[in-house]
Every structure is written in structure tokens, then in C-alpha cells.
């Protein structure tokens, strides 16, 4: 195989893909427009922030200090407090779902506070666990902020402890769940563009019988696959760029890590995703089946098992095991770290290494499954 011949064949095939793409807008729609649409719609529409949470407040201690501690209830749009005389009244309200939470300070709150052992009881209506977690987060944070403003003297660690557990929103000081969503959305969009597009496009050639004609030609299987990847890789990278711009200028999500790490992680993930897509299409040879398989094996796991919506740590061990080996999980971890925490060399190296291994593995498998045979 001569090198100039290889170059010309590749150029012909890649040009063909681009012409087809420009005639059939659906791939550009999926690859570039859909990402933008998704990030606009989901980014601005979906948010886990909750407002006007009805809370029953039971103040058994009537000191001004406690009033001050609990002043956050009045000053924010997040809470709408209902002051009750006794715990019994509060429990009644909770039973009727008039309130979503009970905040109770016992009569020894103020003395304990100065001994550093103060506690405030937070009782949550646990049926809606997601909402409960958000409320708890808000309460935690408000109390922590009060403390910051009032460093307690004496023993130093005057933490209002007890029900209040350590808050995980370290890097989300704006307390906007959108900041979590944007990196996750990018992962989803790259999965659609990578796996979905490639698997559909290749399955189409199987279906229409055009691949059979390409097989009986000097083209090698590697050339056929490479020519498929190049154009759709470009489309997906365009989609990625649009997402990046939207997150920076529209949602003002900080990018604390380095841009080149984000880009190279994305390149690796896209290669892995296209390899997977090519494999799926070679195995199914049918557009409908390919799209179903791609949905089940790439998009849904990326949505559910990668830590995008549900925290992996709260899943049963077996499912956590599946989730933790998915390429999308590594990519998600990498993006979240880079966006919200900054360059963490150790995490970035681990994730990139995993993605590179997946990219190489899927490409080899795709090559092996496209052997220039129709049967």
C-alpha cells in the first residue's frame, strides 16, 4: 500500500462523508445543534434548587443568640418559617405535610453554644429524599455561615453539631446545582455525539449495501473506519466547543482546571465513544438496532450510573461496581474535578489513563469486528 495512494483514498472517503453530512442535516443536528439546545434547555430549566421551603421552628430557648443563629430563616428566599409553641404542634404540622422540616433548638442551646457543644435538631420529611437532602444542605450552610461570622472563643470549636453533618458543597459556594449540571451535560452530549452518531452512520452503510462495494476495493478496514471517525469527530468537537462557550459565558461556570486537560480528556473520550459506536454498528448492521443498543449501553449508563444525577456512593455495591468502570464515569469525574476543583494532577492522570485505555481498546475491537466480510 503506497502512502500517496492511502492519502488520496482517505481524502476521497472523508470528503464523501462531509458531502453526505451537509446534505443530510440530521447528523449536524445531532452533533452540534442538539448539544447547544440541550445545554440551553436543561441548563436553564433543570435545577435542583428549592425555594420557599415551609419549616416549623421550635425555639425552646428564647435567648437573642438563638434568634440571631436562626435569623437566616427570615432573610432568605429558601425558607418560609412557621414558628410553633411546642414540639407537639410542629409534629402535627409535619404529619399533615404542612411543613417539610422541623428545626428545634432546646432550652440549653445558648449555654451549650459557649461550651462548644450546641446542637440544633433538624427533622426532615424523608419521603422525598432528594428534597430532604437539599434542605439539609441549606440548613448546614446557613449555620456554618453564622459560625464563620461569629468565631466562638474559648475552646475554639464551638460548632453547633448533632444533626448537622458535614456539607459536601465545598466547591459550589454559589450553591447553584447548575454548576454540577454543566460538566455532566457535556458528558451526556459527547456520548450522544460519539456513540450514537457513529453507530448510526456506519449501520446505514451496512443497510444500504454500500459497504459491500467498499469492501471489494483496495481500501483496508482501517481506512474505512478512520474515514468514518474523522468527520463525526469534528462535528462532536464543534458541539463540545459550543457547550464550553455556553457554560463559560451563559452560565458563568468557572473552569478552574486547565483548558488543555479538558480538551485532551474530551478527545480521548470521543475516540473511545466512536470506537464503541463502530463496534455496535458492525455487530447490528441495522440503524434501528444500533440506535437501541447505543442508547442502552452508552447514553443511559452515562445518565444514571456515572454520578451525573445519582451519587454513585449511595448505590449498592454491585451497581457501583458497574458504574465505576464505565468510560463515561471517568470522563465525568475528570470534567467535574477540572471545572469545579481545579487541576488535581493525580485524579486527572488516573482518569486520562483510563480513557486512553478505553479508546485504544474500543478501536482495536472495532477493527477486529470489521473484517471486510459480509458473512
Amino acid at each position, binding site marked *: 500500500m503506497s502512502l500517496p495512494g492511502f492519502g488520496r483514498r482517505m481524502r476521497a472517503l472523508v470528503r464523501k462523508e462531509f458531502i453526505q453530512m451537509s446534505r443530510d442535516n440530521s447528523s449536524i443536528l445531532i452533533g452540534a445543534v442538539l448539544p447547544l439546545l440541550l445545554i440551553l434547555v436543561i441548563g436553564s430549566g433543570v435545577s435542583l434548587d428549592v425555594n420557599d421551603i415551609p419549616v416549623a421552628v421550635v425555639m425552646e430557648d428564647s435567648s437573642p443568640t438563638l434568634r440571631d443563629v436562626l435569623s437566616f430563616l427570615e432573610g432568605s428566599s429558601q425558607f418560609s418559617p412557621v414558628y410553633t409553641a411546642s414540639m407537639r404542634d410542629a409534629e402535627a404540622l409535619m404529619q399533615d405535610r404542612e411543613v417539610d422540616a422541623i428545626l428545634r433548638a432546646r432550652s440549653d442551646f445558648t449555654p451549650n453554644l459557649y461550651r462548644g457543644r450546641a446542637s440544633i435538631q433538624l427533622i426532615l420529611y424523608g419521603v422525598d429524599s432528594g428534597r430532604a437532602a437539599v434542605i439539609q444542605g441549606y440548613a448546614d450552610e446557613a449555620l456554618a455561615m453564622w459560625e464563620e461570622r461569629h468565631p466562638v472563643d474559648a475552646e475554639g470549636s464551638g460548632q453547633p453539631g448533632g444533626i448537622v453533618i458535614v456539607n459536601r458543597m465545598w466547591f459550589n459556594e454559589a450553591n447553584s446545582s447548575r454548576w454540577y449540571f454543566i460538566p455532566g451535560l457535556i458528558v451526556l452530549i459527547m456520548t450522544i455525539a460519539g456513540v450514537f452518531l457513529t453507530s448510526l452512520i456506519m449501520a446505514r452503510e451496512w443497510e*444500504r*449495501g454500500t459497504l459491500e462495494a467498499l469492501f*471489494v476495493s483496495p481500501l483496508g478496514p482501517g481506512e474505512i473506519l478512520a474515514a468514518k471517525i474523522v468527520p463525526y469527530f469534528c462535528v462532536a468537537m464543534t458541539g463540545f466547543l459550543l457547550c464550553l462557550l455556553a457554560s463559560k459565558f451563559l452560565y458563568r461556570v468557572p473552569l478552574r482546571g486547565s483548558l488543555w486537560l479538558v480538551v485532551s480528556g474530551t478527545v480521548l473520550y470521543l475516540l473511545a465513544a466512536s470506537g464503541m459506536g463502530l463496534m455496535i454498528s458492525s455487530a447490528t448492521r441495522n440503524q434501528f438496532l444500533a440506535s437501541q443498543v447505543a442508547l442502552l449501553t452508552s447514553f443511559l449508563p452515562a445518565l444514571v450510573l456515572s454520578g451525573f444525577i445519582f451519587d454513585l456512593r449511595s448505590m449498592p455495591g454491585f451497581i457501583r461496581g458497574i458504574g465505576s468502570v464505565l468510560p463515561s464515569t471517568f470522563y465525568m469525574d475528570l470534567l467535574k474535578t477540572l471545572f469545579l476543583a481545579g487541576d488535581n494532577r493525580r485524579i486527572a492522570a488516573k482518569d486520562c489513563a483510563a480513557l486512553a485505555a478505553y479508546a485504544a481498546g474500543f478501536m482495536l475491537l472495532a477493527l477486529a469486528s470489521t473484517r471486510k466480510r459480509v*458473512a
Partner: protein
Amino acid sequence: MSSEPAVAAKNLSRSFRSRALGKTVRALDGVSFEMPSGEISALIGPDGAGKTTLIRVICGIVRPDSGRLVVMGADVTKSPRAVQGRMGYMPQQSGLYDDLTVQENMDLYADIRGVAPSDRSRRASWLLGMAGLAQFTDRAAGRLSGGMKQKLALACALAAPSDILVLDEPTSGVDPLSRRELWEILRLMARDERMTVILSTPYMEEAALSGMVLVLNEGRVLFAGSPGDLSMRARGLCGSLMPEEGVSARALQSRLLDDGETIIDALPHGGGARFILRPGASLSDVRIEGSRGVASAEPRLEDGFMTLLLRPGASGPARGGRASPSPAVQGQAAGETVIEVRDLVRKFGPFTAVGGISFGVRRMEIFGLLGPNGSGKTTTFRMLCGLLPATGGFLRVAGEDLRFAASHARMKIGYVAQKFSLYGNLSVRENLRFFGGAYGLHGHKLRERIEEAVERFGLGEYMNERCSRLPGGFKQRAAMASALLHEPEILFLDEPTSGIDPLARRAFWRSITSLAASGMTVIVTTHFMEEAEYCDRIVILDSGSILAIGTPGEVREGTGGAPTMDEAFIRIVEDSRGRNAT
């Protein structure tokens, strides 16, 4: 030129696990043959004979389980790419990119095969000129007519100079004119470029034009040799006869086929009938009521092919349906006009597909609708069966005006689509129940009609088989049975014999003939011109208008006595196009 064969196969075998049939199929079963270089070799045989598998093995995209195959001096199983670099290939699905233009398709295949850019455009315009596509270079391949598509696919397979050209049914579903043009290109390639051409085809007359013929049946080679030798297999066995006044050619053919002692095959031909004698029988044994002038005839390749396939021991053609008159349509007057078409027009935007045609179809007629690809034949057909509204004109089908009573009229017609349209994962019985129910049949009546249909089409043993697992010919019969459940007055058949082998076609036409005899009116489209001989009357369309109408004999005479229907068709269409061009 070396005398070394272009293709040498020794004991090739290949089996497939067929999920649809639930068993292993031996597509190739110890196949050995040699094909000469620099000539056209044709591969013929019934459906499922292994033709496509053999073609793919030759191209190196299916690996044989065992055996040896040398193509152009290289072992294909070991080094497929060595052969593929010197090979042009046109798969059955044509391999064209529908969303690319004619020129872009050509350029792509030229670049892939490494044609130097300087030669590329010269060769492309030469090939496109030959294929009659020179003025369509900017049109998307998906918007070409069927015949033009096949010619473009052939041009793409020839985009680079190759030593060997392999084509899988390049002329299937293509009209006689385009087919002749395709063959002119192939013969030019073999003669002037010394190219070896291997193709499979359902047309026997094409095989007769080749240098070498290979007959496959059930994965085995039945014959390998010259077309002349194949014809000679039927030497002394062929004869013809003419009908007496008032007897139709079709009736003669039926009577011939009924005489299984003496006759193994019969066809309507040239106003009379042709037949093949059972080996050992003689012309004097042929005594057919209503016939005259029994004479011997020159054997043709098709006769040799039929003799091979129908010889004792080989699996014979499934006998067609019996001629049991359908009670519902009996007693109605023959000759009454059941379809009336006046000034029928259909436009698609500014394009006029059908430009004001008029004709009538009488009860109990078999009426053939013929025309080249893109002639308006399909459009007319679809308007007749109510699938497409007319833009203008008058159309009455079975006494109903389709503009106002389309659904009512549809109860009186049966329709068999070109594509198999029964549910593949339902059994024959379940399909019949469903389609019967869709026409409002139920209970006792439905059961009765299903029983009748099963009897008529001999579907008994397949009733509980899934439709996807039926053998090709039986799929066709099941589709016919379901279209006839509601006892329509008129049956519409859209290219019912496309992609069906000669044996199944015989059986199919037998059941059509018996249906017409029992009072049904049949409208049929086809690309097999010899099938026009089965029709009582035919109409030939081109550019949306009628070029000829009448009995097959009248249409042939109108051209100054063309010997075959194929020839008559080509003359009529070329005459009309020539007149329009000047």
C-alpha cells in the same frame, strides 16, 4: 492472451446458519468450475441456488468453509485484497450513495481505486456518456430512475480500469431498453478492454449472450459450458403449435401443461404456445384439443435450462393452483367493461407523470401494463387501485368512481404489492385471518374463505409456518391468497415476478390463468416481456402516454412483425423517443 482461466474453483462449500429457517443451509455444496478470461460468464439458477454466495466468495467477502478458489492467479481465501485491487464489483443493492450526485459517486469510486486525477475525469465522462448519463451529472443518485441507477452503478464499478468485473443481478427490475444498454457496455468491456465479466441474472436471454454459462441449483453445479451446449440439452424436445379460431394461447398452454405424460414445460409464445417434450416422447404424441400446426422448434437456452431443472430426480416446479371457478364472480357477463379510464392525468408539481391516457379493461381479461422505468406505469397502476388520487380525468373501477367512493371500491379489488407485505413473524393462517378480518370477514365465512384459498394455492402444509420461513414461491402464493380472501372482482399485481426464478414464474402464471378463467379480472405490471404473452391485452406506456395497446399479437404486428415481445417493446419505445427528439 493466456489461456489460463480467470476463475478456477475446486470443491467450494459454504453453509449458513439461517435463523429465519431455523436450520443450517448449504448455500454452496462442493462447487467446481472454471471461467474463461476476457469473456462474459453468466450465473443462472433458481432462487436460493447459491448465486449471490458464489459471487461474494469470488469477491473475497465471504470465506468458503472448504475448497480452493483462484481468481486472476491469486488465492482469494488467502489474499482477498490482492484480487480486490484488480476487481470492479457491483453488489445486488448497487452500492450507490443516494445522497451523492452522479458525478460525486463516480469520483468517489475512482479515487478509492487510485485513478490518477488526470485520467479520472476523462474516464468518467467516457463511461457516463456510454451510460447515457452525461447530462445528469449533478442529479442525486437517489433521484434517478431504476434503469439509470443500475447504469450508474455499473459505471462506478468500471470507474477504474480493472481486469475483472463482478456483477450481482445488475439487470434485475430494469426495463428491456436499459438492459440492452447495460449489455452493450458489458460487451464492449469484454471485447475492447479484454475484461473478464462475471454476472448473475434472472433473464435467460442474457445468459444466451454470454460466452459461458454456469447453472447452479441448491448449491451444486448443474451445468457449466457454452450457451449453445445448454440449449442443445433440449434438442429434439422443443415444439410449437397454434390455436384454432376462438381458442386463446393461454388455454393451449394450460392444456399442454396438464398433459404431464408428454410435456414438461409450456409457454404462450407468438400467439401460440411453445412446449418441451418429456425425454422419450415425440411430437406425434402431442394431441391438444383446439390446436393446429404442431411443429418442431429450435431449442433456446431457456429450454435447455428447464430441461435440466425438470429432469427426473431434480426438484421440479411447484405446480400452480387448480382452475376451480370462484362461485362469486361466475355468471357475470364477460366482456363488460370493469375499468374505465378517460383522460387520466397525474402531476407531481410541474412534472406530468401521466398525461391524459384513456383505455378500458373488460371483465375476465388479463391486462398487462408495460413500460420502461419512469414511464408513468407505476403511477397509473397506483391510481387504478386507489393508492394515489388522480389530478384530473375520469376513472371508474368496478363501477365505482374512485374520487368519491375509494374505500367502497377497494372492497372490490385485491392488491399484491411488489414487496412481500405479509407479516413475517405471523403464520400463514394468522396472516390470512388478519387480512380477512381487515376486510370485514369473520366467523364461519372467514374460515370457509381461508379453506378455499388454501385449497386453491396448495398452502396446506405451510399453514402453521411463519411467513418469513416460507420458500420464495410460497410467499408469493400466500400473498395472493390473502389478497383474494374477500373475493374481489379485480386483482392488481405490481411486478409480481421480479426476482423470481423461471420455475416459480411458471407456477405463478398458472394460478393467474386459472383465476382469470374463473371470472377474475387481472391487472399486472412486469419487466419480463415474454410474460406479456400471457395477457389478453397489453398497453405500453412511455413519458406518461400510451404508445401501443392491443393483444400481444396486434402489438407485435404493429411494429412490422417483431419476432419477440422484447424486440417489439424496444422498437415501439425507441420509435416514439426518436420522434419526440426530432
